[in-house]
């Protein structure tokens, strides 16, 4: 129930073990690496790897392209839309399974079959350097056909002219060409679109291209291969729909391989954050203190024992420790709210369990309807049970599921079921007793702010700044309590007996604030001035407390809208059977809209009260998040170690 304690680790491994180490670390997952490349000193330098990132990205792009075309094709075929369930459903797979399955996938074959323009290693022409326009940008089928039907320009260029000629040639994007060096220059074979032919012929004149035939140059085989590659591509394009039809199972394989490529790319990218000498790589990062030993074993296994590992618990005052929150199940969904603001610093409190209760109460008070609450509860419960969703979606849904409880409870208090569909007596009628509800809102506000102030005191306590508790917390309590007693006299005589005490408390508190809160200033007049200025901060409290009236306002708004729709429904249903039918539609759409708008408002305004009013009292935030050693996945949710 708090911020997880971290240890900073250093690992020394042999360069040749690095791939195995990276693989092991990625399976282990729960580490955040530290970028130590900037500290490089001879003989160490920033880490390098000869991993082929370009090939990886090229394959990624093509897999994505195939999957997208496949999706488009499926849409055309079925004409029906995906069901709601399907669009939220995600595939789950453990990291180990992903690795294993991707090893048995023949990606070259798959991409050659299904990738429209995939350039396999196999489609090279011996001794020739080929430039294929369709590799770089998408070409329409009719352009490809035009290319294949065009007359090839075959010729030789002298050595002097060769490189400027090829440079000029590369400016034409739709040119299919190949070249090979000969004794005194190069042979070029060019196929181009009719629209480019004129310009190209001038270019050939310019660089003295000597026109020859394939036969005389003895490149007939290569020339045929060149044509075959293009023709294969065309027939593949033409038969694409048939191919997609047969794809089925391979779609999953492609997704798996895509995720595999992403992970592989990710782990090799991180190498640049390491330090490397000729033989040794140093890597550094953070791991949960409890898992440090486990991490050591991972390294031991990956290096066959040839390594050095050290881990040391992080000091509270360290700034750059990555933050991971771990809360009890009930509180965990509320980490959403904390994360949206900012993670805590390592020496702060995790505010999640502290904000949960108030957040839930506020949310319930603003939506406050039994019907809406039940709707949320049933919907979220079913979604959680029936659909395998992404982790983040799951968290959001369980968040809403928890919030449905206070919504129902407040609905009972206000006696509201779908905006008063079933008349029932609650404890309060928000339409009539809104003044009372407003006072209750303000009382919640005072409670919330005082709780925030208490937490500020607690933080001082754990940092052992005991005097500050008196200065910044106790004095404020006195001033505020005194002021509240005095202000309440303007509306009610309830606290009249306490008037004297209230005055004394306020004066002590305010004097204390003026005397102590300017203590950071250097000169005496400076201290006095900034002490007075701090006291001026009491106006902020007025603003803060008034801000809680929104609890009443939003509750009333939601209730009124719901009631208005019910009025319309009643009017309509008096018109006979078609009125009833129409009324049912108005009921569903109207209340649907109200749940959406009121729910959204309740979500946002509860968050606002938490961030501005509550966090303003004690919370700073600004901690860096703990990021796992894995790339974010697209198609498949990759499970943690079990």
């Amino acid at each position, binding site marked *: 129930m708090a911020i997880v304690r971290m240890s900073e680790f250093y690992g020394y491994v042999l360069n040749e073990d690095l791939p195995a180490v990276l693989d092991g670390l990625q399976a282990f997952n729960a580490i955040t690496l530290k970028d130590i490349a900037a500290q490089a000193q001879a003989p160490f330098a920033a880490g390098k790897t000869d991993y082929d990132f370009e090939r990886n990205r090229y394959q990624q792009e093509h897999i994505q392209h195939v999957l997208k075309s496949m999706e488009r094709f499926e849409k055309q075929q079925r004409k029906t839309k995906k069901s709601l369930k399907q669009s939220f459903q995600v595939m789950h797979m453990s990291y180990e399974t992903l690795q294993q399955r991707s090893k048995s996938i023949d990606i070259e074959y798959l991409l050659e079959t299904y990738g429209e323009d995939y350039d396999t290693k196999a489609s090279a022409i011996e001794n020739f350097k080929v430039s294929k326009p369709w590799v770089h940008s998408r070409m329409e089928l009719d352009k490809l056909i035009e290319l294949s039907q065009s007359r090839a320009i075959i010729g030789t260029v002298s050595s002097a002219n060769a490189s400027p000629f090829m440079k000029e040639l590369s400016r034409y994007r739709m040119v299919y060409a190949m070249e090979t060096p000969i004794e005194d220059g190069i042979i070029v074979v060019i196929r181009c679109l009719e629209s480019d032919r004129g310009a190209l012929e001038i270019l050939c004149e310019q660089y003295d291209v000597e026109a020859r035939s394939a036969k005389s140059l003895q490149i007939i085989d290569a020339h045929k291969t060149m044509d075959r590659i293009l023709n294969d591509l065309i027939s593949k394009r033409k038969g694409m729909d048939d191919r997609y039809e047969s794809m089925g199972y391979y779609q999953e394989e492609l997704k798996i391989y895509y995720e595999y490529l992403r992970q592989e790319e990710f782990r090799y990218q991180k190498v640049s954050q390491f330090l490397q000498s000729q033989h040794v790589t140093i890597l550094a990062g953070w791991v949960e203190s409890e898992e440090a030993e486990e991490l050591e074993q991972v390294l031991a296994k990956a290096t066959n024992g040839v390594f050095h590992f050290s881990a040391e618990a992080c000091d509270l005052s360290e700034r750059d420790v990555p933050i991971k929150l771990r809360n009890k199940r009930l509180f965990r969904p509320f980490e959403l709210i904390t994360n*949206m603001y900012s993670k805590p610093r390592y020496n702060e409190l995790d505010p999640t369990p502290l904000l949960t209760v108030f957040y839930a109460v506020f949310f319930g008070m603003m939506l406050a309807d039994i019907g809406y609450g039940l709707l949320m509860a049933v919907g979220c419960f079913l979604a959680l049970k029936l659909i395998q969703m992404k982790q983040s979606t799951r968290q959001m849904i369980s968040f809403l599921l928890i919030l449905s409880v206070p919504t129902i409870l407040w609905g009972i208090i206000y006696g509201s079921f779908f905006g008063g569909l079933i008349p029932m007596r609650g404890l309060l009628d928000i*339409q*009539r007793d*809104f003044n009372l509800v407003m006072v209750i809102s303000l009382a919640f506000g005072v409670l919330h702010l005082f709780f925030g102030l208490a937490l500020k005191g607690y933080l001082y306590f754990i940092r052992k700044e005991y005097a500050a508790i008196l200065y910044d917390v106790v004095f404020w309590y006195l001033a505020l309590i005194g002021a509240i007693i005095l202000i309440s006299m303007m509306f009610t005589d309830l606290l009249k007996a306490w008037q004297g005490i209230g005055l004394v408390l306020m004066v002590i508190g305010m004097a204390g604030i003026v005397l102590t809160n300017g203590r950071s200033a250097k000169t005496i007049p400076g201290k006095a001035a900034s002490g007075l200025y701090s006291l001026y901060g009491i106006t902020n409290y007025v603003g803060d407390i008034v801000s809680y009236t*929104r609890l009443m*306002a*939003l509750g*009333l*708004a939601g209730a*009124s*809208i719901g009631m*208005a729709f019910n*009025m*319309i429904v009643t009017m309509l249903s008096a018109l006979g059977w078609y009125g009833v039918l129409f009324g049912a539609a108005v009921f569903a759409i109207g209340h649907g*809209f109200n749940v*959406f*708008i009121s729910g*959204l*408002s309740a979500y*946002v*305004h509860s*968050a*606002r009260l938490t961030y501005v009013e509550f966090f303003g009292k004690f919370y700073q935030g600004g901690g860096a998040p703990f990021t796992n050693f894995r790339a974010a996945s697209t198609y498949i949710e990759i499970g943690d170690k079990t």
Partner: protein
Amino acid sequence: MNFLLSSGGLIFAVLGMTLTVVFPGIGSAKGVGMVGEAASGLVIDEPDKFGKSLILQLLPASQGLYGFVIAIMILGNLRPDLSLQQGLFILVACLPMMIVGYPSAVAQARISTAGITILRRNEEQMTKTIIYTVMVETYALLAFVTSIIILNTVVF
């Protein structure tokens, strides 16, 4: 003059009722239109984001609804023998929603339109725009609640 005294009550009440639908309604229509226009540009390239853009588009729609709800609530108070004073009271009760509805819907729509750009570039951050947008809505909501409170306090 006599006519004003005898039927003025009803006329002013209905005037309040209609105008409180008209102005916020214009605002919402304009706002929803603006966002819809921006969203269509997005959906051409990325049809999958339709659902999310719909949420953004719906946000400035609430002002029109608030005006409409007030009109419905006035409906319960309408009687042919409303006095001039009562009629004017209802008209004045409508003023907050009538006035605040239009500009707040348009302001909200501007943020939503910006949100469409965010949706295009960085989908994850869209929730934050929604929060900005709902902040504007607060004021429409306060106007709405004020109108409702005034209408509820005095019972004819």
